[in-house]
């Protein structure tokens, strides 16, 4: 692949799928500076791995693999399980006032729950919340579809129990 084509392909991927990087970074880093570093590292890895991209995989599957591998490998030391996520105000800007408190509490609880999960379970939960099919999750993680189903079931049970403690 020529350098210019490679650069163009890279820029298109980053522009179209930047959300994947940020969503993964959001799940693995609580600190904004760490998130920026992590996203930058993901982009570097995408650039370095462009020649390995295999058309048989969806681009999103390939990008999730890279971003999750980077997040788990390089940022384990920065994750602390006893910390709470703060929800940026701009995310709540379009939610009505009466809904705001309930939504904030739910989102905060959800993010706290994700933060407490172990790295691989966190990846699974993230992909589940992104509405990926069990088959695609299995392809990203490299496990069987039935195992994905079992693991998601267990995590959902824990999540259900956590949300049931939340007073209306």
């Amino acid at each position, binding site marked *: 692949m020529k350098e210019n084509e490679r*650069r163009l392909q890279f820029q298109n991927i980053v522009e179209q799928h930047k959300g994947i990087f940020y969503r993964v970074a959001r799940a693995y880093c609580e600190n904004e500076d760490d998130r920026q570093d992590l996203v930058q590292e993901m982009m570097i890895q995408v650039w370095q791995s462009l020649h390995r991209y295999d058309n048989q995989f969806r681009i999103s599957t390939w990008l999730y693999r890279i971003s999750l591998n980077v997040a788990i490998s390089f940022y384990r030391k920065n994750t602390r399980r006893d910390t709470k996520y703060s929800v940026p105000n701009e995310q709540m800007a379009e939610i009505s006032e009466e809904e705001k408190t309930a939504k904030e509490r739910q989102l905060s609880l959800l993010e706290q729950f994700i933060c407490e999960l172990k790295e*691989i379970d966190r990846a699974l939960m993230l992909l589940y919340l992104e509405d990926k099919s069990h088959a695609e999750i299995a392809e990203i993680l490299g496990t069987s579809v039935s195992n994905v189903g079992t693991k998601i079931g267990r995590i959902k049970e824990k999540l259900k129990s956590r949300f049931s403690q939340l007073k209306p």
Partner: protein
Amino acid sequence: MNELELKQLWQTTSEKLEKTIAVNRINSEEISRLKIYHFISLMKPIKIFTLLAGIVWVGAGLIILSNLYLNSFSEMSKFFLFSASVQVGLTGLALFMYLYQLFTIYQVDITEPILRAQKKIASLKTSTLWVTRILCLQLPFWTTFWWTEMMLQEWNVLQWLLTAGITLAFSFAAIWLFLNIKSKNSDKKWFRLIFNGMEWAPLINAMALLDQLDEYNADIEPETRVRL
């Protein structure tokens, strides 16, 4: 809150987050420069210092020992030469293993499925234990540097018992540590005492990750289990 509401809650905030993201157009030159910077920044100053000190130690050791073997062999204490050679040899081996491991980790295919790639990375990180095990084997040779041929002729039994006792104790400690510094002993108190500092955090984290991966493997059919 049901499944659908949960996903909607997550996705709504994700979409809003995405709208606020402005990614600068990054060109390949910038990315290449960042990559080099990143690899160096992965290594903390203490690691760089330790590596450089190790290279200087082994390099200087090799030069001095070669000179002694070639020019002063007959005059030198054979105990000193032997001890120093083993020391430098083991340090060189540990250094080579550490550098090889660093580069191998760096070259793991990050586009592989998560469980497979993480298994490789975590296994390579835990192989740092091999470096420590090899360095432990040096212990008894620190006690034999100063031995001389004169000791064999002039020393009494008590002096010999004391000296040999110290060397035997160090030999026992070295062999015991070499045999027991393994991942399976990571929950033991003595292990946690040795691998207590921040510099060991990546190793301890890698062991924890391997445990997680084993949990995943335990739940699935043998043919789909993650293998290196």
